[in-house]
Structure formats: C-alpha cells, structure tokens
C-alpha cells in the first residue's frame, strides 16, 4: 500500500482500515522485500523501479490515471481479474453505475479546489463526475486545460454558482472578499479530500455528495 494511504490528506480509504496494512514509499526494495503476488503500480512510477520489478520477474500491473468513470470501471475490472476476484469487480462496477444520478435540467457551474489554490481542470475523473452529477466544471469554462491555479480576477469576471473545497487555500479569504465586493452570489460547499484522490470505490460517495450539492443549488 502506498504511504499516501496513511496520510489523512491523501487517503481515499478510511484511515483505520488503511493503517492495518504496511505502507511503502514506492522503492523497489521495500516492495520486493514483501514478496507480493502482484504489484499494482502506475505509469508515473520511476522507470528504474518498474525495471527492477521486471528484472526480478515479478507480476506487475501498470495502470494509468483514469479520466472518466468508464475508464475507472475498466480499471476496477482489470484489478479484480488480476486478483482473481472478477465477481467483486463486477459488483463494484454495478454499484458505481447505480450511483450515477439521472440529472436533468440546469447544470450550475461549480469550481472545485482539490488542494490549496489548485483548481480541478478539464479532462479529469472529477470533471467527468461533475458532468454526470449535473454540474458544469467552471474551470473548464475558463479554459483551464489541466489542474492548476486560476487568477481570482478570472473567477470574478464569470463567477461560478459554487466553489467546492476541503478547507481554504492561501488566497481563499481574498477570493471570497473580492467575490462579495463584486456582488457575485457564489456559495461555498464542502467536498471532502478523500473523495478527490482516487476512482473506483470513492466514485459512489463522490457522486452522492455532488448530487446533494447540485440539489441545493437548483432548489
């Protein structure tokens, strides 16, 4: 398990559950020492580390970062198949499909800060979750192609209906003050960090939270 799973700001699992398992910093020797049946890694892991797994003949599953719900569901099945539990994979995919709201009507623009002043851009899994929950990603409207920072004046010129975050970044107070002074009716909504980090099982509560936020905005 990645060491990030043991950090409250990065984990997608309940911390108590995550801490039952030993974590690694991702170095080859830590992983090899544990003799895993399967190593699940990603394309951003250092090439040297992945080469070390290969040299030792370990069974490795290299995944990409899913940008859509469909891609995340495909990953769930890939992992379930590799772990020999395809039925559990299919059950999780069914629960994800069941959690997708049947949203119709207005699509309020919302901006999501995933951490500090980093706004979630277009082409990400969270962007797809927004769309499926009946929200419009304001960052994509502003032209933010990837996750990054947005100048406050860009937000003030076209204020979103809601700003979602899990705590304030450095410029949050200033942003709020400028928005209020400009007469914008933007509301703040809480979106927990643990729903932003991964796909798979977290998609279900993430969609539920987004649907609840949308319901408040359109009511």
């Amino acid at each position, binding site marked *: 398990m990645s060491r990030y799973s043991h950090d409250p700001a*990065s984990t997608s699992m309940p911390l108590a559950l995550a801490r039952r398992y030993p974590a690694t910093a991702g170095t080859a020797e830590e992983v090899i020492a544990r003799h895993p049946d399967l190593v699940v890694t990603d394309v951003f892991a250092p090439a040297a580390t992945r080469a070390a797994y290969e040299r030792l003949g370990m069974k490795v599953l290299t995944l990409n970062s899913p940008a859509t719900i469909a891609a995340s569901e495909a990953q769930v099945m890939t992992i379930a198949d590799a772990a020999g539990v395809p039925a559990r994979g299919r059950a999780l995919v069914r629960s994800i499909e069941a959690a997708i709201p049947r949203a119709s009507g207005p699509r309020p623009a919302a901006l999501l800060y995933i951490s500090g*002043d980093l706004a979630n851009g277009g082409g990400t899994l969270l962007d797809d979750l927004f769309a499926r929950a009946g929200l419009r990603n304001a960052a994509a409207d*502003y*032209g933010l192609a990837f996750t990054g*920072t947005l100048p406050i*004046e860009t937000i*003030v010129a076209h204020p979103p209906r809601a700003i979602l975050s899990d705590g304030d970044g450095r410029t949050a107070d200033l942003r709020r003050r*400028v928005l209020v002074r*400009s007469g914008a009716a933007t509301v703040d909504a809480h979106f927990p960090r643990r729903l932003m980090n991964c796909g798979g099982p977290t998609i279900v509560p993430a969609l539920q939270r987004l649907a609840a936020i949308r319901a408040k905005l359109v009511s």
Partner: protein
Amino acid sequence: MNRTLRLVLLASLVVAGFALSLAAGKQWLPWGSDAATAVFVELRLPRAILGLLLGAMLGLSGAVLQGFLRNPLADPAVVGVSSSAALGAVAAILYAGAGSLGLFAAAMTGALAAMLLLVALTWRGADPVAFILAGTVLSSLAGALTAFLISIAPNPYAVASVLDWLMGALTDRSLADVARAAPLLIGGCVLLALAGPALDALTLGEGAARSLGIRIGRIQALVVLGTGLGVGAGVAVTGVIGFVGLVVPHVLRPLFGHRPSALLLPSALGGAALVLFADSLCRFVPGAAEVRLGVAMALIGAPFFLGLLLRRRSRAWI
C-alpha cells in the same frame, strides 16, 4: 543625453509600467462595474505596488552587492537569503498548511536565520570572497533542505502547491500582503542606499577605503541587513524571483557609468520597470493560467546572459 534626462526617462518607464500593471489582466471588465472596482482595488493595485517595490528592491540590492563584492555576477541570491526565506515558506506550506500570514512569518524567519548565520560566518572580517562563500554555503544548504522537505512531503497536493509557490508570482496578492511587506521592502532599500558613498570608496580597494574612514564592517552589516529585510520580505510575499538584481545593473552600467553610487537609483528604477512590465506580460499569455513571474524573469535573464557571453567571446581569440 545627460544623467538627469536618463533618470527622467527611467522614471517615466516606471510610471508607464505601473499604469500597464493596473490596466492589464486576463479579464477586461467594463469600467465602473462592481466587479471591475473589486478587481482594481483588491487585486491589481496591490499587485502593481508590490511589483514596484519588489523590482526596486531587487534592482538596488543587485547594484549594491555587485559594488560591495566587486563582482559583476553578484545578485541577491548570492547571500543565500532568498533560498533561506524560501525554505521557511516551503516548511510552512508543507507542514503547517499556512495561509498568507503564516507563510510570511515563516519566510521572514528563514531570512532572519540566514542573516544571523551570514553575520556569524563573516564577522571576523569583510572579505568579499568569504562573504560569497558564506552566501553560497547558505544558499546550497537551504536549497538542499528545501529539496529534502519536498521529498518527504506527506501528500502530493502540498508538493504541487510548493512548486507553484516557488516559481514566484505577483498574482492574487492583497493589500494585506502590501501592508506586511512594504515597510520591510522600503526599509531594506533605505539601508542599502546608505551604503552608496562607501561603495565608491571600495572601488579603490579595501585598504584605500579604510584610509578614507570607511568602516567596512559597518557597510557589510548594512548590506546584510538591507538585503535580508528587503529580499526576505519579497520572497515572503511573491516566492523566488531571480535575475532582476543581476540583469538590471548590467544593462544600466553603460548608461550611468561604473561608479557604484551613481548606479543605485537607476538600478532601483530599472528593477521596478522591469518587474512591472514583465508581470504585465505574464497576463497576456493565452490560456486560463498566468505564466509565473519567476519563470518569465528566467526566460528574460538567460538569453540576456547568453548574449553577453557571445559578445565577450567575439572579442576573444576563440
């Protein structure tokens, strides 16, 4: 063209840069609307004021350090204060989740620690080589500790915030940031300006300067304190912005002469103009996000020094 006219031209450039900084933006809002007033007062005015003060500070400190160390490649980074202030800020972002005030306090603590270490390492004598070596040690140490903190960061989002902050920017700074940094930036500039006459004497050599009644230790203290306060405050509100202190005195020396004190005011004005124009240009780049000012300055500074190198090479036999 005489010196006064050149100074008036530089001052006009600063005024034009300040006006451009107030007018330029990703958004062109209808004048008089609530949104335009909010953006102008809360965002562009503090940004322009900080650009003016920071640029003046960086340009002036570059000219003073080049004069004091008799080294044309000296700039504020040489004394290690900016790296140490950055270290303080990075620690605050990673481990305290600091807001603007906490980040400012942590960066100033880093700058203060660097100043004390610099004084401790160089108090026995005012040897420029020892000064540069001490600054290099501080800068390397602070850089290594910053990299270490990033490498053990508990979560990847904090790392992204740190990297973004380290690139240096004037985007979304508030009047509160101005209120915190301005007294230190202005105080730093005043202290550095006081060193002017002594820098002229130092061009004759340390021995001659001493015989003229210059107390080298006092000048060194002025330089350390002025650079530390000003550059520390600058880094604390904007992140690391390099090259201004290096480039500006080089550009202005042929126009204002090689006497160090004659270069101080022009360098302050030139630094302010450069930062104001560069920061305005950062906003014209297509796309939602702005180019970071630190990145823009590096993109301006590196070709400048390449040009300088090629010009020198064309004079040599190789």
